């Protein structure tokens, strides 16, 4: 499958944090969720992709181009929404069109004003007069109005109410209806990824813990709550992580169907992305 983004052996060392030999891909036409606790390295990885920081080693290819040599070409075709990075507050919404049409070769003013209308953003209002949610919507309008093929979103929906988040998620789903479009969505709100992601990349302490398709997670992963004696009876091959509680054990299984064939009375709950993330961070990994 063709990849929109290929990150290979990306390493960046700071005094108190290392992004350690990170490699992953975003397949064309997919929505990839990048998850991990605060400080896991998600924003560092995204900053490297955008050439905002210089990695110590590693290679990044976006839309089949080198992220450093072809930075300008790449950024013409990539839309970016970063947390807390809004448009300049003194500008009017309509000013953004005036500026961007001189910056992006494929800027579509008509589309931009359509988004403003769709998001109910007044053209003659200053950015500083917009609410947080409206600012996020304006950022999305900008990111989507230059015919971007790849969206990079870093905590772009954080702080939004569920209704607005749902609107944005719908927008992303519409965006990937074009099979040449892809999205990398870094977020803490894993429930959003449960709804729309095709792949999940889980980062923990500067490393990639796993990369899985959501289909794989839905079909094969499950959470089993069992007594200690039952847990002892299980083979370590049956599960991938567990959390011991006072009187029971919570087990993350990764061959749900196989286990259900052996133990037909077992109740294995669906494992959400948040469950898996918690197991990998708080639990014992096999």
């Amino acid at each position, binding site marked *: 499958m063709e990849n929109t983004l290929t990150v290979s052996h990306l390493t960046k060392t700071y005094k108190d944090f290392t992004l350690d030999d990170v490699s992953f891909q975003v397949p064309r036409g997919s929505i990839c969720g990048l998850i991990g606790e605060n400080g896991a390295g998600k924003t560092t990885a995204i900053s490297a992709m955008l050439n905002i920081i210089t990695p110590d080693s590693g290679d990044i290819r976006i839309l089949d181009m080198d992220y450093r040599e072809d930075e300008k070409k790449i950024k013409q075709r990539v839309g970016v929404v970063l947390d807390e990075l809004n448009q300049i507050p003194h*500008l009017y919404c309509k000013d953004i069109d005036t500026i961007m049409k001189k910056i992006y070769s494929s800027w579509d003013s008509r589309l931009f004003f359509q988004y403003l209308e769709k998001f109910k953003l007044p053209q003659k209002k200053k950015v500083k007069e917009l609410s947080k949610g409206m600012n996020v919507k304006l950022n999305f309008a900008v990111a989507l109005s230059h015919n971007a093929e790849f969206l990079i979103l870093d905590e772009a929906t954080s702080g939004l109410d569920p209704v607005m988040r749902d609107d944005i998620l719908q927008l992303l789903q519409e965006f990937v209806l074009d099979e040449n479009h892809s999205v990398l969505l870094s977020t803490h709100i894993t429930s959003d990824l449960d709804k729309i992601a095709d792949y999940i990349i889980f980062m923990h302490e500067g490393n990639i813990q796993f990369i899985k398709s959501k289909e794989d997670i839905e079909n094969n992963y499950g959470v089993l709550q069992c007594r200690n004696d039952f847990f002892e009876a299980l083979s370590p091959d049956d599960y991938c992580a567990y959390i011991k509680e006072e009187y029971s054990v919570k087990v993350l299984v990764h061959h749900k169907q196989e286990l259900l064939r052996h133990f037909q009375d077992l109740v294995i709950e669906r494992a959400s992305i948040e469950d898996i993330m918690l197991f990998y961070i708080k639990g014992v990994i096999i």
Partner: protein
Amino acid sequence: MTGLIHRDLLISFRRLGKMSYIMEAVYFFFFLLFFKNAYGALTFFLLLAPINMSGLPNTMKEIDSNYKGMRAARLLPYSKKDLVKGRFLSALFNQLFYVAEMVLFAVCHHFIKGGISWVTYLLFIAGGWLVGIFMTAVNLLVSFTTGFNASAIIYLITVIAVGAGYVLFLFTGVKTGILAQISSLNTAWIFIIACCFDILILLASYIISIKCFDKTL
């Protein structure tokens, strides 16, 4: 590049707001109508206009520091070098507005007051612009090499230094028969030397700014 220049100019224009331009008009008419002798014109051309025309780097530094303006610019399809170049060009393009204002002032002053030749007006405008370019070059350099507070302080220092230089200029020997003296000086050489000095400062400022900016963000 036009996109970056447009961005900086529009942001600066919106940031300064109407009040700033009203004050500009007030100063313009004050020096034109109420303080209309030769010193009024001198003050407008050599002090007020250069200070006003060199404000963009500081305004943009404030936007960069307080509203992550430069971080937002890094997401745009430009290299780091382009961003520095764009800021320098914006600052220089911004000066054209003030040069036009000086020309307008000279024309109005000539018809209202008279007594100053067109050549002298031209020398005033060129002198003011050269001072403005020097101040802009210094402030651009500072905006790329220091933080917002240091940048604001150094901008203030350049304003005070230019003000002090102007006062010294008025209250030293040059004061007597100032217009005659300016006309009789070998102005061509003075301006060639001043232009070379400005170009050197501007180039040095540009090269150092690119090197410093490359290490940040």
